[in-house]
Every structure is written in structure tokens, then in C-alpha cells.
């Protein structure tokens, strides 16, 4: 009885659970033993460069494709499609019927998830109005700009008020204004109780939005946990500028410190800032500036996934 209660409680707290998911396409292993747990009500990011296995992982999680091995559990169900009416999904490759009117497209996507078509149209009108697209409601998708069509599809993803929202690269193709709107929308849905799981190769979005991230590289999860835990894997970085060029204070600086212009850059020693400061002052360094920086998610990503993965992501971001 107690065990069952604990189990139910755990189910309530975990919206998506993947255990050792593997997906092979012929001789190619696209996903290699991915395990992750997405807490209910959280914003969870799947970080990694293109080809890392993010999309395949998401497709397995929501039941579009079956894993070669491993298990997944979504909203308490082993078969994700059974939970489809409670899930909203925005695929990486956006798609709508060009001849369909915007409100019908949203209602159609809701109807696919079990929302009555009339109610879908009613909600579509409200949602389009809220996103300044009210006048486009009865216009065919083909007449909308790419950004507008993306917003319409996003609204179709949430029209049935899903408990779990899965977004594959949701920021791709959006301008800065719409990216900010999307971030707001994600936060709003989470406040309303939804769980958001999204993939991205843009670290800044994950850093701003996510409570937890999984870093995926070459089909494997290199890290799964809270964003601050990822950052905590790295020591803070010290940036020091002194008036004195040399002196006993130099002994307080680690041997692997590097010079960047007039600054010394090095990891904060194990003892923390106080012993360092004392040694610098006592050694006559003449501190001009001293900054202790917490490492960002990008630095954590480089440390976890490796330089090549980080370089790939930077390249994708630039594109």
C-alpha cells in the first residue's frame, strides 16, 4: 500500500521518464542509452548540436517512433500515444496545410488531440487575438509570413490545453521579438501547470528558461540535472588586474593561470576568495580589479560535451 502510494507520488512528480532508450536506423545508432526524468510542471531543456539525437529522442518519447530498446513513460502511461490528448507537440520541421484558414488549422490540430472542432475554433479566435493575429484568423496559411505561420502552429500545439508540451527547436526561424514572445508563452504555460520539454541548440534559451537540462552528444546523455548543478561542475573564474607587475603575491596565483591582456585569468582556488584576497594584499599585488565569475551554461556545456560539440552548436547558432 505504502509502496503503491510512493509510486503514485513519484508518477505525479515525473511527467516523462526515459530509461536506456536506444534507437538504431540500420547500422547507425542514433540514440544510445538515453535516460532522463522530466519533473512535472518544470521547463526541461534538451541541449545538443544537430545530429546529437535530440529529435529522435523526442519522437520516441511521444510515440511517433518506437525505440529499438529501452522504455519510456509519459504522463503515467507506457504507451505515449495513449496520452496524446494531453500532449502538445511542435515538430522541428513546421508544417500546416497551406489552403487551411489559420483558425481552422488551430482547430484541426486541437481536433487531432480530441478537442471538439467548434470549441477549437472558438479558442483559436481567442488565441489569435491574444497574439495580434486576429485579423488573420480567416485567411489561408499560405498568405501568412513564415513567422506568423510558426506562431499559428504553436497555438495549435497548445489549443487543447495539454499537460505536457513538447517543442522541438521551437526558437528556430523566429525573430528576436517572437522568440521573446515564445519564451513568455512557455513560462505562462508552465505557470498554468503544464510541463514543457524542449530541444534547442541555443544555450541562451535553455539558460534563461530551463530549470533542468539534459546535454546530449552523439546519442548519449552527457549530463542530466539542474542548470546550476551543471554550472557547479566548473570552478568560478577569477579575473585579476594588478598594479604591481611582480612580487610575492604571484605565489597566490595558480600555475596554470593565463594572461589575457593585462589580466590574469584562472579558476578560483579550492580555499575560496578570502585566502586568495589575503595573499594578494599581503604580497603587495596592488589590486586594480578583481572579478569572480560564475561559469555559464555554455562553459558547462563545453566542459561536459566537449569542444567539438560546442563548436558545432556555435556554428548552428550562427546559421
Amino acid at each position, binding site marked *: 500500500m505504502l509502496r503503491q502510494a510512493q509510486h503514485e507520488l513519484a508518477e505525479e512528480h515525473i511527467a516523462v521518464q526515459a530509461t536506456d532508450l536506444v534507437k538504431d536506423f540500420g547500422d*547507425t545508432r542514433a540514440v544510445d542509452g538515453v535516460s532522463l526524468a522530466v519533473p512535472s510542471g518544470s521547463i526541461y531543456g534538451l541541449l545538443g548540436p544537430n545530429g546529437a539525437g535530440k529529435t529522435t529522442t523526442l519522437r520516441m518519447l511521444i510515440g511517433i517512433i518506437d525505440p529499438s530498446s529501452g522504455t519510456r513513460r509519459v504522463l503515467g502511461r507506457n504507451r505515449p500515444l495513449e496520452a*496524446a490528448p494531453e500532449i502538445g507537440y511542435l515538430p522541428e520541421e513546421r508544417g500546416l*496545410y497551406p489552403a487551411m484558414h489559420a483558425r481552422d488549422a488551430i482547430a484541426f490540430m486541437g481536433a487531432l488531440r480530441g478537442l471538439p472542432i467548434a470549441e477549437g475554433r472558438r479558442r483559436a479566435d481567442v488565441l489569435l487575438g491574444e497574439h495580434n493575429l486576429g485579423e488573420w484568423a480567416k485567411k489561408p496559411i499560405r498568405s501568412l509570413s513564415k513567422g506568423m505561420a510558426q506562431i499559428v502552429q504553436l497555438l495549435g500545439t497548445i489549443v487543447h490545453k495539454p499537460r505536457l508540451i513538447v517543442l522541438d527547436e521551437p526558437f528556430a526561424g523566429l525573430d528576436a521579438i517572437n522568440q521573446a514572445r515564445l519564451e513568455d508563452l512557455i513560462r505562462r504555460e508552465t505557470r498554468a501547470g503544464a510541463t514543457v520539454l524542449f530541444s534547442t541548440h541555443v544555450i541562451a534559451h535553455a539558460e534563461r528558461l530551463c530549470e533542468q537540462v539534459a546535454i546530449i552528444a552523439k546519442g548519449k546523455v552527457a549530463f542530466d540535472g539542474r542548470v546550476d548543478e551543471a554550472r557547479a561542475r566548473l570552478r568560478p573564474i577569477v579575473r585579476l588586474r594588478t598594479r604591481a607587475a611582480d612580487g610575492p603575491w604571484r605565489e597566490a596565483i595558480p600555475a596554470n593561470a593565463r594572461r589575457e591582456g593585462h589580466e590574469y585569468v584562472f579558476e578560483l582556488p579550492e580555499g575560496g576568495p578570502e585566502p586568495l584576497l589575503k595573499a594578494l594584499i599581503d604580497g603587495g599585488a596592488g589590486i586594480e580589479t578583481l572579478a569572480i565569475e560564475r561559469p555559464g551554461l555554455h562553459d558547462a556545456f563545453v566542459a561536459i560535451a566537449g569542444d567539438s560539440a560546442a563548436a558545432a552548436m556555435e556554428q548552428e547558432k550562427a546559421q
Partner: protein
Amino acid sequence: MTRLLRSAFVIARRDFTATVLSKTFIFFLLAPLFPAAMGTLFGGIGARVAAQTERPAVAVVAPQAEFKQIEAAHDEMTEALGDGAIVKLVGYSPEPDLAGQEKRLLANRSPPIRAVLSGSLDHPRLVGSLADDPATVGQVKLLIERAQGRDADQGPEIDVSDVKNVSGPSQSDRVTTAWGAQAILFFLTLMLSTMVMSQLIEEKSNKIIEVIAAAVPIDAMFVGKLFAMLTASVLALIVWISAGALLLQVIKHGGSGSLPPPAVGWPWFLLLSVIYFAMNYLLFGAAFLVIGAQASTAREVQTMSLPVTFAQMLIFAFAATAINALNSPTALAAAVFPLSSPLTMMARGAEQPEIWPHLAAILWQALWVALILRFGAKLFRRTVLRSGPRLPWWKFGRA
């Protein structure tokens, strides 16, 4: 199950609306003009072939001695003109109820009787479906003159009675109906096949397929798409049948009522036509949907269309072997083979009056529709909705 049906309905509603409310549906409605012309042509050829292979027989109801006289005359004429040119004769002893015997003989199928010759050599009487068959009347007249040893045009006048409307259609009329029905069914399905094959192209090129696949079971998508097309086709079929009936009313005396009725009768035949059209469409449509699902572009669909068309023609030819030989081993095989079954059973409906074989065939075909749908959905799931590198064809289905 409820969810599957509900999801299929959502897909079907969208597809049906998109199809019927598009401008191209007008062209779709005009499309049967060409196949109809071809069907008429092939139907005519078929009827001629059937007429040749099944020469009309004349039942001679006469005492043995008289029949021998006529038969001797027949042999002489056959020797002179060749066997294929002269009407066949079958002798029967007279029965007390001559009218009943005539009626029974005219309904005979083995051999099919075109007319019954009775009376005597001096007062011959010919009863049968003869209004459009002056050659048979002429040949019988010559035979009687020859049997009596008289010169041409010196024999007795024959009392000719056309009883076509009394005793129903001849076997060759039913063969024509069977040919026509098969041809129409074949061309309708042929016309729809390319459309069905390209059904998923829109979703694939729009990328909306992933949204649908994430929301509903693939089976529902297949069922929805197939039934949307079926509904649109049935709508078109109603338009075509109505237009055809109206056309007949205008151009043919007696209108559609003048068409030779099939063996099961028009109400059953029309019902079976709709059911077999649906079954034929669903069987081929399910297969084509699976094949079409492998294509990513309209060009690939076009490339696939040609072999598919030839395959359909082969199946049509297979089913056509059943006409006028419904109980032959080939015909039975064609009735059992799922893809040729609807066409073959259409021919049976035109030629034989029993209903129960149709019920069994419909169940059998429905089973295959379900099997092809399930297999197709599985294949579709495996091969279409996947990321990663594309597999070479010899590893097809391993994903």
C-alpha cells in the same frame, strides 16, 4: 477503438473537405469521360467475343424423324459454309405443355438457347430473343427449306415470336453486363489509384505528417485518408450514375430501363456494385497508400504509377477470365484472390442469381482490407517517420 474511429473521422473530414471543395474536383468529375469511352469500346469487343464463343443454339422441339431431317440439312450447310457460320441445333422431344417447355428452354443456360423451333416443317414456329437477330431467323428458314428439299424462298413462312421481354435477357446480354460492370469498376479504381498514391505527398511535403503521427495512431490516419477518398469517390459515383442514367434517358429509347438486367436483378446489382466498388477501392487503395507512402515527391509517385497501372491491368485481365465461365478453376481462383475478388464477383452478380456467394466474398474481402491496412500502417510507421540516414532498398523495413 473509439479513439481510432474519432481520429480517423478528423483526418477524413479534413481530407474530404479539402478534396470536394477544391476546384480540381470538377476535373475529377469529368475524368470518367475517357475511361467510359474506352470501357464502351472494350465492352463491345468483349460482347462480340462472347457472342462468338457462345453461338446461339436453337432448340428444335420436334419428333425424332423431323429433327433428323433438319439435322441433315444443318450438316450439309455446315459442310458448305463452315461450322462457325451456322446456328447450333439441339433437339428436344415435344412435351404436352409446349408453352412451358419453350419458356424453360429459353431460360436454359447450358447450352444457352436463343430460340425454340416448334410446330412442324410445314408450319414452323420460332420463339425467342430474335428482334435483333435476323441472321438466326434466316438460317432457320433456309434449314427448313433444305430439310423439305425445296428451293430458297419456296418454303413455308415461319411464325416468328420475339419473347425477349417475357423470358428475360439472354446469356450474352448478361455477359455484356458483366463486362461493362467489370470495366467500369476497373477504370474507376485505376483513376483513383494515382490520387490515393499521392494522398500522403501533401502531408509529407508540408511536414504536417509528424504533427498527425504524434497525435493519432497511424492506423487512424490510414483509415481516415482511405475513407475520405472513398466518400469523395462515392459522391462522384452518384453524380456519374445520375448523369449516365440521364444520358441514357435522352439518347436511348426506354432509357435505363432498356438495359439488360443482371441475374441478381437491378436493386441487388446496384447495391453489390457500390459494395464491390468500395471493397475494390479499399483493397487497392490500402495497397497504393502503402506504396505511395514510400514516395516523398510527386515525381516519385508518377514513377510508381506505371508499374502499379500494369499490375492493375493484369488483375483486371485475371478477373475477366471469369466471365461466362464462373465455375472454372481460374474463375474460382480469381474470386478468392483478394485483389481480383471484387471484379470477379461483379461478373458473378451479372451472370448468376445466387446471393450467398456475395456475402461470403464481401466478408473475405473485408478481412483482407483490415489485414492490408494493418500491414500498411506498420510499414508506414517503420519506414516513413524516422530521422537518421536513409536505408538502401535491400534493408527496407529493418528500421
